[in-house]
């Protein structure tokens, strides 16, 4: 074994060790859960992930798009039909990269282009809160899009390649703390632009015209 191999093996081991230690952090703490609940309200997760008359966060709410229907998945900790078998790492990847468990690339109806702004710390708190929800057995098949949009690959990965870069929110040091706090909320969990910024084809948020209104078929018009 060469020295180089040994070094890279050692580096890999350190990374694994660091990851294990990090993921062992206590997210059963009261403050984590309370913060997660606050963030879940800010992100309004419940509205897309709860069917009308359904159990909270158990999925089934329909989102009509120009390409067909998507159903919000069950994000309760149910192992069989929810995200009970997910790790915190899986959850972070979903928010930050738009890639779910088992490397499934999500459609950006899940507004990961906005949620990518959320910090790792906040994602952990959200995760801690979601883990305390009542697990609900509710089988949901999210992908109800029309052909050919229902075929994820290579559409989603191509879309991501062209239109999306994972990036946590960076505060603007020339602006006030309040401004930055507002920007973090608007651009991140609030995902305001997802509805209030017009989309170009192919359904990309026109970042050149943020919050200027008019978003096809999803409904919201105002500025």
């Amino acid at each position, binding site marked *: 074994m060469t020295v180089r191999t040994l070094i890279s093996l050692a580096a890999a081991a350190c990374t694994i060790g660091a990851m*294990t*230690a990090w993921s*062992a952090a*206590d997210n*059963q*703490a*009261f*403050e984590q*859960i*309370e913060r997660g*609940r606050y963030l879940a309200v800010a992100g309004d997760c419940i509205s897309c992930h709860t069917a009308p008359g359904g159990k*909270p966060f158990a999925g089934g709410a329909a989102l009509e798009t120009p390409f067909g229907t998507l159903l919000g998945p069950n994000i309760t900790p149910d192992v069989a039909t929810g995200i009970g078998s997910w790790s915190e790492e899986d959850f972070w990847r979903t928010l930050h990269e738009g890639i779910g468990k088992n490397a499934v690339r999500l459609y950006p109806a899940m507004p990961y282009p906005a949620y990518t702004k959320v910090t790792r710390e906040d994602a952990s708190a959200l995760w801690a*809160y979601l883990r*305390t*929800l009542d697990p609900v057995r509710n089988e949901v098949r999210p992908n109800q899009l029309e052909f050919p949009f229902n075929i994820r690959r290579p559409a989603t990965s191509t879309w991501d390649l062209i239109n999306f870069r994972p990036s946590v929110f960076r505060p603007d040091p020339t602006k006030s703390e309040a401004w930055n706090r507002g920007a973090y909320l608007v651009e991140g969990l609030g995902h305001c632009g997802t509805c209030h910024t017009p989309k170009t084809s192919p359904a990309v948020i026109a970042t050149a015209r943020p919050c200027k209104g008019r978003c096809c078929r999803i409904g919201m018009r105002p500025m």
Partner: protein
Amino acid sequence: MARKLPATDVVIVGLGWTGSILAHELAASGLNVVAIERGPWRDTATDFPPAYAQDELRYHIRHDLFLRPAQVTMTFRHNVRETALPIRSWGSFMPPNGVGGGGVHWNAETWRFLPSDFQLKTHLTQRYGEKFLPADMTIQDWGISYDELEPSYDKFEYLCGTSGKAGNIKGQIQAGGNPFEGSRSREYPTPGQKQPYGPTLFAQAAKEMGYKPFQPSGNLSQAYTNPLGVTLGACTYCGFCEWFGCGNYSKASPQTTILPVLVRYPNFEARTQCEVLKINLDKSGKRATGVTYIDTSGNEWEQPADLVLLCAFQLFNVQLLLLSGIGKPYDPNTGEGVIGRNYSYQVTSSVDTFFDNKIFNPFIASGSIGMCIDEFNGDNFDHGPHGFVGGGYLGAVQTNGRPLQSTRVPKGTPRWGLQWKQAVAKSYLTSYQVVTHGGCCSYRDAYCDLDPTYTDRFGRKLMRITFDFHENELKMSQYLTDRLAEVAQKMGPRQFEKKPRTGPYDITVYQTTHTCGGAIMGTDPKSSALNRYLQSWDVSNLFVMGATAFPQNAGYNPTDTVGALAYWAADAIVNQYLKSPGPLVQA
């Protein structure tokens, strides 16, 4: 607005030691049981695996397993002349949170109280006369005897697989055990653990002085399967016992003794991360209808039940009784009322020794390994010449040598810098601490009530603790420490330092989590909140567990007695109460 859930037979508040014991006994008798626990579910393999459980920074310094004061706290003052302030960071005691409660992070010290402890008022009055006791001392008899409780002590110890050497079996004193203990029906379930060097040296010195050293009960010394069929393993002396979860299945906890069996009952349900806000009463105020609790999403729920068992930690039992308006709150001015009355604690001290020629390997440690003497506990000696009552055990109890906190240095060492570092390095292997663990009497001015100023996030008043050490306890501690120092000196150190407990009580410094009282058991409803079966005098379908029931604290760790009382109460509930619901004792 609380949403009402379908009724159940039994609702249990808190799923720690007593909650788990009672849940199991009642689920096994066929009742539908719902346990509501404020903290998270915890499993050995998931939550404290050996992969990372021995993390001093995380668990000891950053209090990872404990309740967060932001969620629940209380205010504290020494006496009525002070204004109580909220505790924002735990110090003197470490309140538990989560399934398993304090049973997860205790160090398994499993001591029985003395027979005389249960009739303390009568016994001391008879021996020394009423005038010997301070006028403001409010100690009481418990309403039960050691002999009545003995089978329950036995049951709890055999549940836990406690290791040790009995000192008195059916009246026969056994060599190697505690000659002062009450009579046991049989030997400990597992033999005593092997002792490291420090306790061995202490025992030698004690013997030379004419004392009778013995090992206190311990963690598992060998593999053991308890009567429920749950198996524990032998302790591996990792030295991360108290304040930590055991990943080795060698510390008795609800997780390692009861829960694997309990969760398989279809008539048992646990709801975790749900905080009980109050116990609900009917219009008469004499019957509990269930509890109201809040979940992590902020939803309020009402859980109706025929029987309510308050099994939270002592502090929270008292707080819930006060907030629910059950029983008359205690007023120190009039001496009337029972809820909050007779709050007591534990009085500990130590002697630090420094050697030139001995290596102690303090990291070879277990939660309750050690050698102790009981000559100075309870009323085991004549207090007449000394002017105080009570006592404690003296011993070398080697629980840890953890890197961040093992910084014992001789007096006079600079408190920082090169010389300090050198002294820490030198003393780590060659210094040793021996301890006293003394009881605490109850007093008229030591009590709990609701704070007039501070509220929690729900707008409910925080509980206020008013407590300080009294002259009796400080005299006792000085005496015990002096006796301990004599044994320490015999061990042959280069130097030693006596550290008796001094007043005022410092709530910022860790001592023990043995807070007691506040809803005590007794024979008279005017001076106790519970009858001898831990049933509320005021609300007959409410039973209150834990050290809450202790009228005063003895010179021993409380958990064995807490566990025994839970089995004692469970027996009364199953065999008497369920057959004929109502008060089990006529007031």
